[in-house]
Every structure is written in structure tokens, then in C-alpha cells.
């Protein structure tokens, strides 16, 4: 590992002062002259045919400037997945049907919130209710009502990028509610099970949870007199949003500009292009005025995206030493009223699981099923939390069956560096999994604290420890497939970095600036970053698929190196020396061994401008997310390259269970994360701590309380995010595995440390009280019921 001046240091974030003084502008803080407020009318019914919509009274209300509905978007469908096999299925505003409570029906723009609200109340909608289904199992029954009667193939967004299209034609009738299926098989599964000395099968369940970023979703849209659309949006990648918005609105990409806003957290929930964004643009077009749509917390929690309801079945065969001989996994998710990211998550449940343990033979099936519930989308970990919860709870049970210590069993099956993943062909060029396991076991005092409690004791408070591991990838082939960056040097040797990243809390502005500073050989203070604007910055991959630092970071490093190369070349000319004889230090380039022959960066730039071509020196760099992949891998077969690098984490939980109330308190949570190289250790720690906190919420207390398609806790009193008191003692360590493909050896940091928490806690609860909880969240009610069962029933 190199000895660096700027990267690898916990430098304060470049956006801190703005955020600490209230100056940082988020989308809902934008104020424009003449700006209208937009509001959305949503379906109160889970499934219904729209007989008629009457907006005349709303339109006549004083102060109302525009009303739109399905008619205004006819033929338009948008979706997270839009491929020939899975064509987009979500009309931004309902055409003839609503499919979930919260489905968009119409939108209004008015001079203020009150008027917009009044206008909504004046819209009459006549519905004919249709039978509805609320679980994947019900939706799969042959007699279940079809939630989508047709697929609408046509041009998909991928065709411009070389995907095979399907000719646009008549709608294709659908025959079931299966929205997507992934099937993978390799090795001889039957032989593997036959050869096993022990086989067990278990079932697990997780319920939807919310991203719940502190900033509710918002959008501002306006058209300039020439007809160009400008927007501020809550996003995770502005180029992806621009691409889809342009397609949706039928305008050229260069006619759409996304302006910078800070984003108040996202966690996967702000990737999609949402109906309210399309709505803001359409209302702006119709009214000729800027329009702000700020979703309420209720809308953000119920009608944007949430995590999946999943049922997982895992069957594993092991030999006498505990080595896995074969595995059979089925995952069924309820993807909601539209496909959302269903096709991706059933692929990912395979892809995130496979890098952890060596499995010689596997049968995997993932099904995403339509229901009349709200739509599901990617959330931090995207499938990894529930597949890892299932598999590592199951491993803990296997360990007990076999009488092998869980950590030992994990270690025996864990993968090593150099292994090639089945189906994708990805190689683990770096892999710190075993190191992470050992470190977590050591810091959590695994050996000393495991199996210490007597399950039959009458002690009120009992403790236990549990372990789990997980993996995450670092960027994949998905629009826009890569990132570019530009660095412009200033007269004094300082520089401005132009990178399309969206700062949503992950610290990308800081880490990218650090990379630029390191490569240029200037202090961090000398770098100014322009980000988050599609007009001012080159294309950028986006901060999802955990690709931010990995992909864009590389582009920034290349851009800085390019600028530096130009500096050196100019210096060589001016100093009449060979480039190879030059060295740089403290913003000064000198001839090796002749320090008096030197020029400062500022002098070189000045001379370049004044005496050479006038070039102030501009560097650029670009990189592809996965260089040898053409397009994303097949979602249905998992074939095709997927990522360049995997991150790993091992997590240990120590819990105390109050057997009187059923409350589980996590006392300590140890995470060792193999993130390659931490570009800014403080930022990486912050990501890990945030992951752990979010994961603990999902493990113990968070759940979207859905009943008959309706969310019963659409606010922060009922949807319970962890608070200060909930935080355990956290130990967050990093394993430096030095990824050869990452910038300075770095790989992903934003999602990895989420997915080991669930099983670690469930296993620790079992260790403490002998009760196995197989569904999340681990509520007091489940603990009490389990204790009751263990005691053979109690009054």
C-alpha cells in the first residue's frame, strides 16, 4: 500500500460547512419566482377500474394553473427494469386501472399548497373495484385475478445501447402474476445431496422495510423560453434520471438539465424515475411556470418504493467436515403492483450469496410476483439482507446439528482470493472474508462468550453472541456504463474537479476531491468540486450498484493524472529537461538532482497560457464500470459479467434478551469490512455505522405494516427508525485487501455492512435463549411466543 498524502486520511468533508450552517440546498429548498406547488391525487383502492375522472371543477378553482392525468401521458410507461423480456409496466398516471393504494391518478399545480389541496378535493373519480391480492402466495394461485393483463413490448431504453429489441406490436396477453423469474443451476445437485452426510431445509421470511431517508422525495421542474426542461430532483445518479426522464417525456437528452441539489439520504430509494417527477415536468410544461412537488412523509413511505416481502427456502447438504456439497434455494418476493426492481432482486439474491461460500452444486430459483401492494425497489443491499439472513441462520442451525462451531463452519466454507464465480465468471481478485471473520471473532470475544447461558435458567436477562457474513459488489454494467471526469487547473495551481456525482451523504464529493488532490499532488483545500449537474459535468455512473467510489473514483484519478501529465510536459519544455527526469513536490516540479531548476504549478500554468498555446491545462479521464462486459448480465439466467470487485464483511452481534418483555437489546456489534482501501477512513466508518444502524432497525423494529394493501404506519411514529438510545457499542474495523482494479485499491463501502447483521442477531438470540426466530423483525411478540413454546406453554 502506498504512502499517501491525502487519500487514506480522515479529512473533514468538503460539504460540512454548508450543511452545518443551513446553507446546503436540497430540492425542497429551491425557491423560484412564480413557482407553483404540485400535489398528487392517489388511489384509495388497492385494485379498481377507473370509470371516469372529472377534473373540471378543479380546473376552474382560482389559483389552479394546471391539472394532468393519465390522458396526458398516454402510452407512456416507465420502470426500473425496461428490457425486451420485462418491458416497462408502470404508467406514471393511471390509464384505466389503479393497482395499489397510492397509485397516481392525477396531479394539480396551484399557487400554494392549500389551493392545490383544495383542487384535489374537487376531482371526482369513479372507480369500479376489482378483486385484489396481497400476498405472493395468493397471487400465484391459478384463480387469482391478473394484476397486469398485458405486457406492452416496444422500444426499451436499452435499445440505443445495443440490446436486442422486440418489435413494437400488439400488447401480449399475460397468463400469471409472475413478474420475473431467475433460474440458475450448476454442478450435479442431486449427486451432491446424495453424497451429503447431513441435509437440512429451513424457511425464512422478511417483511418490507422502508429506506426512510430523512429528506422526503421532491422535484422542481421548469421550462426555459426555448423549451428546455430544467429540474432539481432527489436522485442517486443524475445521468440515469436524465436519460429516463428524457425518454419518458419524449425529448432529446440534451434538452433536459438536472441541476444540483444536495440529497438528504437515499439508500436505493431515489434511483427510480417516479411519477411525481414526470408529473412535475408535465405540470410545468402545461402551466408555463416552475412547479415544486414535495412528497409528504406518508407519500414517501407508501407510494415511492420499499423493500421486498420475501420468503426464502434453503436446503443444504454438507459432508462430515461441514463442507457444503449441494444447495437448493428458492426465493419468492412480492414485488407489488408494478415490477419495480423485482427482476433484479431475484437475480441478486443469487449473485450476492454466491461469493460467500463455496458451493459445488446449486439449484436456485427466484420469483418476483405481482400483488396489489405498494411497489418494491432496491434498498441498501438489494436482496442481500434477506438472502444472507436466511442462509446464515440456516448455517448456524447446521453448525449446531453437526456440532461444529459456527465460525469454524463458516471459515471452512468461505471463499478465497482467486476464485472464479460460477455463471458470471467474475474473479475474486481480492477477498478478505476469512480475515474479516477472524477479526470479528477476536474483537467480539467469540470463543469466550458463545454458549454461556443456560436456556432453562430463570434469569430475566440473558446474553448470547452470533455471527454472519456477507458480500457486495462494486459497480456493474448498467446505464450509463461508466463515468468520466474533468479537472481544470487554475492560475495558482489549484483545481476544479467536474464530476457528475450526487452528494447524498455518502461523502462522494469528499473522497473524489481527495483522489484528485492526491493524484495532482495538491492539498485537499486546493480542490473545488462541481458536481450533480448534467450540464456542467461529464457523464457519471451514479451512486448505486455501489459503484460511486469505485467507478467514478477511477475516472477522477485518470483525469488528475492526465492534468498532471500535461503539467509535466509543459514543465519539461520550459525547463528544457526530459519528462522522465522531473519530480513534483509541494506544487512544484523540479529536475531530479537539480532542485534549483524548478517551477511552481502556478508558474507552469501561467507560462502555458502566456507563452504556449493558451492552454490552462484541463485533464480528463473516463472508465467503464466493467470493461469486458457489453451489457448487463442476463437477469433470468445470471449469465454474463457482473462486477470487477467484491467487498466482504463479517459481523458479530452480542445481545441481551429481557425474557419478561421479549425485548432484544444489541449490546455490541462488531463489523470487519473488507473495503479494499479506505479512501477516507472516517467516511468509511460512517458508512459502516450507518449500515449497521439501518440493519439493526430492520432486524429488531422496522416493518412496513401492510394490511390489505394499506400501510398502517405511514409516519415516523409508527415506522420506527432507530434513535440514539438504540445504538450498541460498535466496533467497525477495516480489512485492507487492496483491490488491484480499484482507485488506490478501494472497493465499495456503502452497502456491504448491512447484510450480516440480521443473521448475527438472530443467531445471538438463539445463543441466549434457545429460541430460533426465522422471520424479521425479531419482535418482542415473537420472542415471547418462542419462550412460551420452549417452556411448553404458559398461562
Amino acid at each position, binding site marked *: 500500500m502506498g504512502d499517501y498524502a491525502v487519500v487514506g486520511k480522515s479529512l473533514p468533508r468538503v460539504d460540512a460547512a454548508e450543511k452545518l450552517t443551513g446553507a446546503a440546498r436540497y430540492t425542497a429548498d429551491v425557491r423560484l419566482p412564480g413557482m407553483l406547488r404540485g400535489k398528487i391525487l*392517489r388511489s*384509495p383502492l*388497492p385494485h*379498481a377500474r377507473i370509470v371516469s375522472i372529472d377534473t373540471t371543477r378543479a380546473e376552474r378553482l382560482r389559483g389552479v394553473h394546471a391539472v394532468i392525468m393519465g390522458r396526458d401521458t398516454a402510452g407512456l410507461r416507465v420502470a426500473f427494469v425496461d428490457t425486451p423480456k420485462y418491458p416497462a409496466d408502470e404508467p406514471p398516471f393511471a390509464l384505466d386501472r389503479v393497482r395499489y*393504494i397510492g397509485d397516481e*391518478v*392525477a396531479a394539480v399545480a396551484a399557487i400554494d*399548497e*392549500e389551493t*392545490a*389541496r*383544495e383542487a*384535489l*378535493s*374537487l*376531482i*371526482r*373519480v*369513479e*372507480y*369500479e*373495484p*376489482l*378483486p*385484489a*391480492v*396481497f400476498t405472493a402466495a*395468493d397471487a400465484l394461485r391459478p384463480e387469482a385475478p391478473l394484476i397486469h393483463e398485458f405486457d406492452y413490448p416496444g422500444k426499451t431504453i436499452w435499445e440505443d445501447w445495443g440490446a436486442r429489441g422486440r418489435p413494437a406490436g400488439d400488447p401480449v396477453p399475460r397468463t400469471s402474476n409472475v413478474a420475473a423469474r431467475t433460474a440458475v443451476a450448476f454442478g450435479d445437485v442431486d449427486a451432491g445431496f446424495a453424497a451429503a452426510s447431513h441435509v437440512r431445509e429451513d424457511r425464512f421470511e422478511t417483511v418490507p422495510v422502508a429506506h426512510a431517508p430523512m429528506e422526503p422525495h421532491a422535484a422542481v421542474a421548469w421550462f426555459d423560453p426555448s423549451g428546455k426542461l430544467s429540474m432539481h430532483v432527489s436522485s442517486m445518479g443524475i445521468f440515469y434520471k436524465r436519460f429516463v426522464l428524457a425518454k419518458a417525456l419524449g425529448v432529446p437528452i440534451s434538452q433536459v438539465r438536472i441541476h444540483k441539489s444536495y440529497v438528504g439520504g437515499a439508500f436505493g430509494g431515489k434511483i427510480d424515475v417516479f411519477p411525481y417527477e414526470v408529473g412535475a415536468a408535465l405540470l410545468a410544461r402545461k402551466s408555463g411556470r416552475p412547479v415544486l412537488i414535495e412528497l*409528504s*412523509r*406518508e*407519500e414517501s413511505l*407508501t407510494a415511492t418504493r420499499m423493500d421486498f416481502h420475501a420468503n426464502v427456502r434453503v436446503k443444504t447438504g454438507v459432508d462430515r467436515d461441514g463442507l457444503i456439497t449441494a444447495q437448493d434455494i428458492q426465493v419468492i418476493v412480492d414485488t407489488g403492483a408494478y415490477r419495480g426492481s423485482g427482476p433484479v432482486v431475484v437475480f441478486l439474491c443469487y449473485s450476492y450469496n454466491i461469493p460467500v461460500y463455496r458451493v459445488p452444486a446449486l439449484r436456485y430459483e427466484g420469483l418476483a410476483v405481482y400483488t396489489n401492494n405498494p411497489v418494491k425497489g432496491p434498498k441498501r443491499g438489494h436482496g442481500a439482507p434477506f438472502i444472507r439472513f436466511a442462509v446464515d441462520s440456516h448455517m448456524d442451525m447446521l453448525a449446531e446439528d453437526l456440532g461444529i462451531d459456527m465460525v469454524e463452519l463458516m471459515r471452512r466454507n468461505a471463499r478465497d482470493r482467486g476464485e472464479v464465480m460460477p455463471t458470471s465468471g467474475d474473479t475474486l481478485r481480492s477477498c478478505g472474508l476469512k480475515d474479516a471473520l477472524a477479526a470479528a471473532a477476536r474483537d467480539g470475544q467469540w470463543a469466550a462468550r458463545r454458549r454461556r447461558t443456560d436456556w432453562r435458567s430463570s*434469569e*430475566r*436477562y440473558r*446474553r448470547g453472541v452470533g455471527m454472519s457474513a456477507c458480500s457486495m459488489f462494486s459497480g456493474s454494467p448498467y446505464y450509463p456504463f461508466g463515468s468520466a471526469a474533468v479537472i481544470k487547473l487554475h492560475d495558482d495551481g489549484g483545481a476544479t474537479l467536474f464530476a457528475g456525482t450526487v452528494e447524498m451523504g455518502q461523502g462522494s464529493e469528499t473522497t473524489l476531491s481527495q483522489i484528485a488532490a492526491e493524484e495532482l499532488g495538491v492539498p485537499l483545500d486546493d480542490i473545488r468540486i462541481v458536481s450533480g449537474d448534467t450540464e456542467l459535468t461529464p457523464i457519471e455512473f451514479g451512486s448505486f450498484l455501489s459503484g460511486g467510489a469505485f467507478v467514478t473514483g477511477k475516472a477522477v484519478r485518470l483525469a488528475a493524472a492526465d492534468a498532471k501529465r500535461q503539467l509535466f510536459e509543459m514543465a519539461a519544455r520550459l525547463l528544457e529537461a526530459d519528462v522522465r527526469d522531473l519530480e513534483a513536490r509541494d506544487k512544484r516540479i523540479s529536475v531530479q538532482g537539480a532542485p534549483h531548476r524548478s517551477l511552481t504549478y502556478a508558474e507552469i500554468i501561467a507560462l502555458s497560457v502566456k507563452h504556449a498555446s493558451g492552454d490552462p491545462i484541463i485533464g480528463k479521464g473516463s472508465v467503464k464500470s466493467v470493461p469486458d462486459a457489453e451489457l448487463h448480465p442476463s437477469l433470468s439466467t445470471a449469465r454474463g459479467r457482473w462486477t470487477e470487485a467484491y467487498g466482504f464483511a463479517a459481523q458479530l452481534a452480542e445481545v441481551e434478551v429481557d425474557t*419478561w*418483555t*421479549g425485548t432484544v437489546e444489541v449490546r455490541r456489534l462488531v463489523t470487519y469490512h473488507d473495503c479494499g482501501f479506505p479512501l477516507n477512513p472516517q467516511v468509511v466508518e460512517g458508512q459502516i455505522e450507518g449500515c449497521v444502524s439501518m440493519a439493526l432497525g430492520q432486524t429488531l*423494529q422496522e416493518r412496513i*405494516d401492510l394490511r390489505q394493501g*394499506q400501510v*398502517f*404506519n*405511514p*409516519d415516523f*411514529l*409508527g415506522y*420506527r427508525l*432507530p*434513535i*440514539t*438510545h438504540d445504538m450498541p457499542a460498535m466496533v467497525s474495523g477495516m480489512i485492507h485487501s487492496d483491490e488491484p482494479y480499484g482507485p488506490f485499491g478501494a472497493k465499495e463501502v456503502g452497502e456491504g455492512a448491512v447484510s450480516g447483521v440480521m443473521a448475527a442477531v438472530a443467531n445471538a438470540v438463539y445463543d441466549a435463549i434457545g429460541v430460533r426466530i426465522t422471520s424479521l423483525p425479531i*419482535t*418482542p*411478540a415473537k420472542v*415471547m*411466543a418462542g419462550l412460551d413454546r420452549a417452556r411448553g406453554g*404458559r398461562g
Partner: protein
Amino acid sequence: MAPNPSRKRQSRRGAAQSGMSLSMENGIHYHLPETVSEAVGLLARHGAAARALAGGTDLVPALKLGILGARHLVSLRRVPGLRDIALDGDRDVVIGALATLRAVATSPLVEHACAALAEAAGRTGSPLLRNRGTLGGNVCLDTRCWYFNQSEAWRASRDRCQKAGGARCHVNERENRCVALFSADTPAALMVAGARVELAGPSGMRWIGIEALYSGEGRAPLALAPGEIVTRIRIPKPLAGWRTAYVKHAVRESIDFPILGVAAGVELAPDGTIHAARVAVTGARSAPVRLPEVENAVGGRRLADVGDGDLARIATRALGPLFLSDAVPHKRLLAGLMTVDALARAAGEDSGRRRS
């Protein structure tokens, strides 16, 4: 699968998801009386259409959700003297209805008179809410229900329930009677303290025991006469040996309403014998309730002699059947164990907490 809904066409008016409901907003009137009698006069004049406004931490959410059911807000902010916490002579502690929960939680007078009350006030909502929320507002808190405390748009998915003026109850379908839960933290502690409440109404002042303040009705939990407000709350001087504790079970240690709150008070002899006890529970029914069976069971004995299991069973039985949500099907069992916990803490013992 949901039963096949009737194919009957339904016409719906749009409603906004959270945010002030329109019908409320346009017609809302704000009043700022300067005296008790002026306030009471305004409340009496507008009857059911008027509501007293204290800290607003419950009233403003209700206004935003469109469930307040009133058009006149009568602010008590300017009414003098209602914020004080003072000793009446050298005896009782008298707390003004507008004293903030923070003031109650941190008052040495309250701590001395009834530790359970200080604890309960200190565990109500969050610190931010306690800086605005008042004791009077907490005592007069409306009942809560998953079907009722929702936005207008949310509630548009089904018929209006009874509490909202409709015909049906979505929770207690069998009896079709509102069973919304009373979940304020401090009233259980006030019951244990034997608190009395001063009411001011159009026909003057009266003092009642705190228990008499509650009707037990989910729809309208307060037994106040039209125009009446709570002005003061009196905590009698504690007897020697009288000790109290409040145990709150909630998902999180802050913000959340109690799933259950149990307050206990014991009059303890030096040898640990309990001369007399009081126990009250909040979060179980449409009013806070006393558990006299438990009080009798421990009276004249030492806690250790009763036994945790027996005591828990007595408490569970005393509470009687409850409407149980899926989230807390074990609420009765929980109430039993929490009662044991609260009594033990009041008596200065700990319940199984072992330090390691």
C-alpha cells in the same frame, strides 16, 4: 385473497395525503383569551366545535390529519398562573395545567411528591416534545387508534369509523364499539399519587379525583362538562414510607407512546412490609385503569412473599380481556410482568437485573 368486492361503482373525492385538511383549514378560528373565565366562555359558546390549545403537540397533528373535529382553537397561552409548580403551604404540590412536561420531569417538588410522575413526564414523547407539551394536555390526551390517527387520504380507503362520526368500528367489529386506546404516560402515575384535578367551567371551579376525569369511552375519553378545562393538578403530600415508580414499555426509549405503562406506589414499612399499594396501567384500555386486586394482594405482605409468578397472574387477571393487536398479542402477560417490575422498583428492589 380479499373477498371479491362488490362491483358497485364508487365515486371518490380526492383527499390530500397528510397536510391540513381543507375543510378544517379554511374555517379555523384562533382565540387568545386572557383569563380562565374568558377561555371557558369561548369554549362553552362554541361547544363541540371548540378545543383548548395547550402545547399543541397532539392537537396540531390532529389538525393536520383532519381528525380534530373542531373549528375553534382556544389558546390557553395567555391565561396567567397556569404554568406554576408550587407547594400549597407545606403540603400538597400544585401543578398548573400549562406546566411543560419538561418542567414537571425536572421539578424537585414533583420528584419528592411522586417520583413516578417525574419519571412518566420525563419519558413522554421526546425531549423536543416535552419542551412544548404540557401536563394538562397529557392528562386530556385523546385516545388513539391505527384506523383513526391517519391522514384524510388514508382514511378515504374505507368508511369513516365511529370515532370519526361514522357507524362502524374497524377494530371491535363484533360489538361495534370504539375501543381506541388511551396512551398518555402521566395519568397512571397521577392515579398512583392520588392526584386531584381542578376543573374550571362556565359554572365555576370544582375538584375531582383524577379517575373521575375519564369516561372509559374510546370515542370521547374525557368526562368533562361542556366548556370545562383542567386548570390545576394537586398531588397530596406523600405519607412517610410512600414510594412510587413508573415502568414504560415502548418500542423505543424516546418518541414512542407506551405500549403499556405501569405506575406503582407502595407504603413501605422498614421491614419491607407493604402497608398499602396503588397500581395503575395506561395503554391497555380507553382510560387509564387501577388494578385494585393487585393492590389488595400485596397489602400487608412483603413482595418477596407474594411471588413474581402469582403476582403477575393476579395482575393479568385484574386487567381482564383486552383488544389485542397483532403487534402485541402478549399484552396481558406483559402487563402482569410489568406490574411486578413496577412494584419491585417502587419498593426499591430490582427485577432480575444482574450486572456483569
